């Protein structure tokens, strides 16, 4: 029995690691953001301006909060039907066939592409395509970035849910079939309810990835530090402004960037909780 206690204690201590690391991150970020909040107050969060001109510096986080939320949520919406279909294809309809294995490997390939390469591809292939479609003059903007984000997060949304869907016990499915259910009904009434928590976990993983993505977005979003005026307008995201300006920043600007990092941390938490709440309401 006492060896069990030891094991339980070890597991519990491991769990503390997450809390310690997160608390450490919040602490370091908070420490770095103090100058910004002292200068601008909590209004920093809703200030819609980013002016680095020396002597008249005004920094605010609102344009970037807007950009991050819009691009990430749009990316998840675009990615969801694609990822879900792919998971069903590989784990249910065509399980263990060669086609499914090829599809699965192709999706896995996506996860190995560095984000700068996504940015390059987006810049040289996606952007002209958007321009040709007449959707935007220069091809930069919210829509283009959301599209590339959606492609980038497909492997995250797919991989885990494919595994989970594949692990649904056969007896449950066979019981439903023996009652005369069609495949569609088995999917929606047996597989999804059983695998729901895993599927949702994978989408939240994907959303987290989208919220924090820098390189690809920064190369396609147009980098204008204002709230985007439309789906095809340019804008900027929190992760992107940090990546763009951090190398050269100092003083008040540096502190403002760290404050944005802290706000991103908070927003990720809010978006995640909101998402789970909405899903719980619908099931």
């Amino acid at each position: 029995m006492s060896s069990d206690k030891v094991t339980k204690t070890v597991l519990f201590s491991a769990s503390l690691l997450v809390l310690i690391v997160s608390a450490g991150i919040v602490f370091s970020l908070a420490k770095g953001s103090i100058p910004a909040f002292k200068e601008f107050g909590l209004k920093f969060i809703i200030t819609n301006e980013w002016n680095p001109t020396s002597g008249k510096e005004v920094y605010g986080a609102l344009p970037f909060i807007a950009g991050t939320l819009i691009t990430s949520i749009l990316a998840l919406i675009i990615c969801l039907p694609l990822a879900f279909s792919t998971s069903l294809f590989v784990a249910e309809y065509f399980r263990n066939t060669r086609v499914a294995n090829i599809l699965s490997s192709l999706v896995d390939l996506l996860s190995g592409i560095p984000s700068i390469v996504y940015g390059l591809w987006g810049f040289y292939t996606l952007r002209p395509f958007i321009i040709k479609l007449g959707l935007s003059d220069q091809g930069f903007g919210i829509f283009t970035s959301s599209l590339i984000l959606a492609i980038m997060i497909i492997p995250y949304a797919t991989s885990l849910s494919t595994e989970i869907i594949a692990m649904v016990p056969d007896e449950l499915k066979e019981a439903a079939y023996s009652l005369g259910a069609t495949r569609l009904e088995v999917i929606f009434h047996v597989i999804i309810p059983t695998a729901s928590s895993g599927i949702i976990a994978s989408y939240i993983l994907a959303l987290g990835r989208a919220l924090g993505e820098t390189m690809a977005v920064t190369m396609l979003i147009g980098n204008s530090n204002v709230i985007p005026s439309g789906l095809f307008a340019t804008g900027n995201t929190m992760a992107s402004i940090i990546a763009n300006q951090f190398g050269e920043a100092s003083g008040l600007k540096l502190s403002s960037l760290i404050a944005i990092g802290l706000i991103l941390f908070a927003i990720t938490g809010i978006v995640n909780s909101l998402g789970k709440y909405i899903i719980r309401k619908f099931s």
Partner: protein
Amino acid sequence: MSVNNIPAFIDNIDGRNKKNKLFLGLVIALSVLTVLPIVLIVSKIIINGIGQINFNFFVQTSPDSLQAMSAIANQETIPGGIANGILGTFLIVIVSSAMAIPAGIMIGIYLYENQGRRYSNFLRSTTEILQGVPSIVLGIISYLWVVKNITNGFSAFAGSVALSIMMLPMIIRSTEETMKMIPNEIREAAFAMGTPYHKVILRILIPTGFSGLSTGILLSISRILGETAPLMMTALGSTIINYNITKPTSAVPLLIWEFYNDPNMVKLVWSSALFLMIFVLTLNILSGSLSAKRKTGRKK
């Protein structure tokens, strides 16, 4: 069963079958649509990158701007390779994995074993938030914690710390979800036989869930293989091969960033990306074959 008591939905068998076929069509169509950008991106990487790949690519260190410039002027392949990046990446990834994988699996199992408790829910939410921290912020954090205070200089270890924090949430969540799909009877049977807790974990839970666990691990390794921003502020980069984790090291994504910014070396960006992509594919194939060997006979 009396014929008069047939439930209403059986009468609608045609409608249900139609919906069934329609949905299958939709799934196939969307899966094809998913494949389209994949094929486009992958082919572009291969076409642009394959030209630079030769034996030297793997064993020589990165070229400098002058060598690249003369090679382009003479229309030859750029000399040198990315050996310093490959070995640096290996070093950093191995150290990160050594830190993140055991911790992640343990925490995932803890969450699984303690479902529904308030502490677990809080822990899970915190893990999901950690997932959304941009990689550059983790780089800044590791700079503050490790570069400034621990190794007193840029180092591979600082890079590993940043990357392991990135790996952790993915491994934790996929471990927990995998464990949840293991039928409870297996676990209870083991306990009923008096197996000590740690053996249940090591001999029953982990092997049964191996495929799901390795998916999570693999996903997290693929994620960090391509990360540039956190390494810029921690491992810094290097033109030589380095095995000392307290010193600056190169890494493939760092080299990609250098190649991208140097006007003469853009071609090498695609070759390095091709390398990373093939490496991830190899990892996936290896892990897939490993899980196939270990699958217990619960699925057809």
